[in-house]
């Protein structure tokens, strides 16, 4: 899937009531097999950019095109559906539903549209967990280790085999070993499976493995040329 974003601009109102620009990116392109790391200090707009690319920022100016789809021109529910089918999200704090089992967490995105998941989908979910070495016998996700929880979250993101993976600091709350596993997993999804992986990170070992780096400061690109290169 090919990303082409133009003249992205997001302004927020701060506590004092003044408008400020949280994001101002003239142009951004990326495609299949690319892995892109977004870096920058806290508050520089990294998460905001990720959500904007996923169609989650309502008052976004500019265009986000994924292949032929002009994301922000889709109505709300169509955007939700597009996201469900095309983008897999991984968060820093995993955001699993603690009271549900790993398999139920992985199948969660299937519940948004269907009442019961097909046998194929269930088999796929089990396969993913197996591949990611998650002990599926656990009744509650809260019983898993942090590394295991992050891998469940990745399995959930991969349920519909989406062409795009969006990750917001996926290794930030993991120990070194688990962080290394997850970094390998994400970069291989791009290198081997041809997915477009965009990840926000402060983790140098993850950033290094990514094909490109996009540094943000105050919502703007620090190195303009990087975006052009992509």
């Amino acid at each position, binding site marked *: 899937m090919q990303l082409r974003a133009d003249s992205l601009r997001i302004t927020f109102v701060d506590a004092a009531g003044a408008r400020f620009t949280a994001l101002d990116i003239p142009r951004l392109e990326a495609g299949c097999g690319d892995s892109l790391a977004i870096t920058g200090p806290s508050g520089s707009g990294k998460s905001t950019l990720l959500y904007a690319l996923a169609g989650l920022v309502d008052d976004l100016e500019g265009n986000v095109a994924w292949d032929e789809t002009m994301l922000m021109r889709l109505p709300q529910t169509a955007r939700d559906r597009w996201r469900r089918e095309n983008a897999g999200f991984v968060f820093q704090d995993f955001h699993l539903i603690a009271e549900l089992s790993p398999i139920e967490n992985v199948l*969660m995105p299937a519940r948004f549209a269907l009442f019961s998941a097909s046998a194929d989908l269930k088999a796929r979910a089990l396969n993913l967990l197996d591949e990611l070495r998650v002990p599926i016998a656990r009744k509650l996700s809260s019983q898993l280790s942090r590394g295991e929880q992050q891998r469940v979250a990745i399995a959930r993101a991969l349920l519909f085999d989406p062409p795009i993976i969006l990750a917001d600091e996926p290794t930030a709350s993991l120990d070194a070993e688990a962080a290394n596993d997850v970094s390998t997993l994400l970069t291989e999804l791009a290198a081997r499976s041809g997915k477009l992986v965009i990840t926000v990170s402060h983790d140098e070992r993850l950033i290094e493995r990514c094909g490109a780096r996009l540094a943000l400061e105050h919502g703007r690109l620090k190195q303009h040329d990087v975006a052009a290169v992509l």
Partner: protein
Amino acid sequence: MNPIPVIRATMRRHWLLFLLFSGIVAFAIALGAILGAQERGFRQASARAADKFDILVAAPGSQTDVVLTAIYLRPGTVPLLDAKVLGDALAAPHVAFAAPIAFGDNHQGAPIIGTLASFVDYLSGGLAEGSTFRTEAEAVVGAASPLKIGDRFKPEHGLEHHAAAAEDEDGDIHDLEITVVGRMKPTGTPWDRAIAVPVEQVWKTHSLPNGHPPGDERIGLPFDPRYISGVPVVVVKPDSVVAAYRLRAQFRGQDRMSFFPAEVLVQIYGLMGNVQALLSSIVMATQLLVLLALAGGAFAIVSLSRRQFAVLRVLGAPRGYVVLCVWSYVAIIIVMGTVLGLAMAAGLSSGLAAALSKTTGLAITALPGEAEIRSALSTALIGLALALVPAGLIAVQKPMDGLN
């Protein structure tokens, strides 16, 4: 869409709050259903009790007092009617029957009522066992009386009665021993605990002429008009509906009043209705408050999980899915509370009705009926509508805000 996993997770996460809210809803629903059921049960039972008392004739005074003493056998003082009235009633055309009701002594708290054997038979719809009284010393007891056939007892008088008895030269009457010869079928009225005796006995107890020439030991009809005494109340059963109105008019006069007990009941129910309406509106206000508190509480509960809902949105859940999850969660609380509340009302109502039956002597059955179920359902429906508010509020939050 399948909200069940999310609902299940939310229920597990805040199970104590879930139970608490279900319990509060159940309590509010039960309150309304119990109130409605008791009121209806009492109204039905009291109306049924008055069914067989077509027209009451009594000395001018409070009609309510007459109804309370003659039908519900509450202690009270009703002045005596002129003796002529009973004679008139017995002789009047279009009267199916007329019967005196006279209040005698009592036995272990059960009132002894003097009347005619035929009226006892009519009230009871045929006796359950034994036979009707044939002498002044015989009695027929109500269905709920502890006395058995063949039991003998001496009536107890009130204290004033005793004083009067000391000066009474006709002492043997007061030492009269009464034998139980029959038992009435259940009537669902306070008469079930009463003891019915020939009116002659009550007259004699009060040292009055007993309807028959001296030396005549016969009891019952016909009375000799020269020896009839006054009684507090005469029950008249007309032979047709038209006759009922004519007879009611006919027995109105300076020294007597005549009315349908229903007229009094309508007034009492009217009064009760006002109180009932006030109570119902208090209950309804309580229920509404509970539902508002529930909507607010549900909002608070799911706000604790707003991050979870934001995550679901990021993962591709449409707003409708979030609405469905939150709404269903609150709906389950309301449905559980309603079912539980109605069950509680059913359980408590029979106990309360039994207690009320004991104090009034009326056979009150007060299970929540269609009216209570319908009112509980409409309360639940209002709750289900209100539940859309927290559901909508959570659903419109921006996923980015929820994640921060």
